[in-house]
């Protein structure tokens, strides 16, 4: 009874849904539309008092629709409406030459370079620390607590210290930002790789021993490949916090360039639209970076025979 009902229902379901890509996009689009709707309502409510004050100051009569329209076009709203953010974003991405100080592409590129260098440094440091921890109990006991402590200090407090100290050492520009970025991003890689390097089955380790494998062989032929899934899990977290680290590092540098500098300048001058468009740029950058790591993971996974 139920079986036959399901058999009938199955093709109908398929007809309703259509292309698999569409199936995946529909739920995402629904959420995005709902968020945009909530955003508009919030913009109206939050900017209402601001606009009403402006009308009353000029002593002009206003209607409700004028009031609502005003909340979506204010120059310095508390909460800019989505279309204002998009317009400002499009303008600052396409409206200026790529190296102009008002171009969001320019600022994104500055932050991206610090992010990528920080990510590479952080990943290498993370793997090196994990290797040391896995191979020595003494190092595990002495290093691990400090590694965990390092992440308990807020980076916002540490970043200016880093900038000042590194500046005194003659390091400026890209490198100090990357170091702050690496300081954050090594952590998930270390934690993941410690787990990954110790993930081989005891039987696999015993097998290597029965073949009298050297420690280097155990590492390259067993521990390292076994750790690859953990590596990618760590790298996905690391790449986003590399970006956060780079942006935070741009705040105390006085705001010359970078997404962080745009955020800082925006908040100085009450340019909420500029802040939001910089945030949008950061979000797009983060998604693209995670996407790239995910792509690398799939390519490596295919070569390593991961079950589809």
């Amino acid at each position: 009874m139920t079986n036959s009902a399901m058999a009938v229902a199955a093709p109908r379901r398929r007809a309703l849904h259509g292309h698999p890509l569409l199936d995946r996009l529909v739920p995402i689009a629904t959420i995005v539309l709902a968020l945009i709707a909530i955003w508009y309502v919030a913009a109206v409510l939050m900017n209402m008092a601001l606009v009403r004050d402006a009308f009353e100051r000029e002593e002009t009569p206003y209607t409700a629709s004028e009031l609502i329209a005003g909340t979506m076009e204010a120059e310095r709203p508390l909460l800019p409406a989505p279309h204002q953010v998009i317009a400002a974003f499009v303008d600052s991405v396409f409206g200026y030459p790529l190296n102009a100080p008002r171009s969001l592409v320019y600022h994104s590129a500055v932050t991206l370079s610090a992010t990528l260098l920080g990510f590479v440094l952080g990943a290498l440091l993370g793997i090196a620390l994990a290797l040391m921890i896995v191979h020595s109990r003494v190092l595990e006991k002495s290093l691990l607590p400090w590694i965990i402590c390092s992440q308990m200090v807020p980076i916002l407090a540490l970043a200016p210290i880093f900038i000042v100290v590194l500046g005194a050492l003659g390091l400026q520009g890209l490198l100090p930002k990357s170091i702050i970025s690496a300081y954050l991003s090594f952590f998930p890689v270390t934690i993941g790789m410690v787990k990954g390097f110790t993930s081989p089955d005891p039987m696999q380790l015993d097998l290597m021993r029965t073949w009298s494998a050297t420690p280097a062989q155990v590492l390259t032929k067993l521990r390292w490949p076994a750790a690859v899934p953990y590596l990618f899990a760590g790298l996905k977290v690391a790449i986003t916090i590399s970006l956060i680290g780079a942006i935070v590092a741009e705040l105390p540098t006085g705001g010359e360039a970078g997404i962080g500098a745009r955020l800082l300048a925006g908040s100085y001058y009450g340019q909420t639209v500029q802040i939001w468009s910089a945030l949008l740029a950061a979000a797009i950058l983060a998604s693209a970076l995670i996407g790239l790591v995910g792509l690398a993971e799939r390519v490596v996974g295919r070569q390593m025979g991961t079950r589809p």
Partner: protein
Amino acid sequence: MNPLADAGTLADATPRRLAVDISDISLTFETADGEVEALSKVNLQIAAGEFVSFIGPSGCGKTTVLRVIADLQQPTSGTLSVNGMSAEQARLSRAYGYVFQAPALFPWRTIEKNLKLPLEVMGFSDSEQRERAARYLALVNLSGFERKFPWQLSGGMQQRVSIARALSFDPHLLLMDEPFGALDEIVRDHLNEQLLQLWDKTAKTVLFVTHSIPEAVFLSTKIVVMSPRPGRIIDVIDCDFPRQRTLEIRETPEFLKVAHRVRVGLRAGHAYDE
């Protein structure tokens, strides 16, 4: 060439070399609840070319015997020689291949690369690796599966790969720790027959841990019955079926007689418990 006659002359002409010589081995574990005597004064001599099964309830130390021979664990007291060497020397000279309960294949390597793994570790040349991988895959009837990954094979096939892997570097000794324990009866029977043929073809010494009485009697030239707390040998039964035997011998009176003796031994060991 008749393998049966061949084996006969081999056995008669040369005085049998000892593959494994265990004397007075004891092994004590320190656990949270105090000491556990995993092995107590175990003595055993195994001649080259024999097929010896270890049978007994869990905790009787049959796996431990294998691990001690393989130098994966060190005895607390007693002496042990493997191919006339110490266990460590034997391991370093790659004297044995070990097959575990689970296939323990490396999931990121294809079947061929899994077979090549010990050869890579031992530094065989590329051409030798290729040649041996092909030869031993053929030996376990898995030619054509070179490029598959382990998850694409059934449990029985995976275990055959792990046996081929253990044989690939041509060790004198094959240590097998319940290799077919996780497989169903029919696959198990089939693999038992294949294993016997393999043993006949390669003339290895095989040490085989099992829970199954019929499996032990069917495969072995010698059955070692063990008992737990402390782990010790309570009976060693010779089992002289012809080298080339079929599953049908399991219905013969001789077979049942040996099986009965194993069962009596096991029961005596268990009585200690209750």
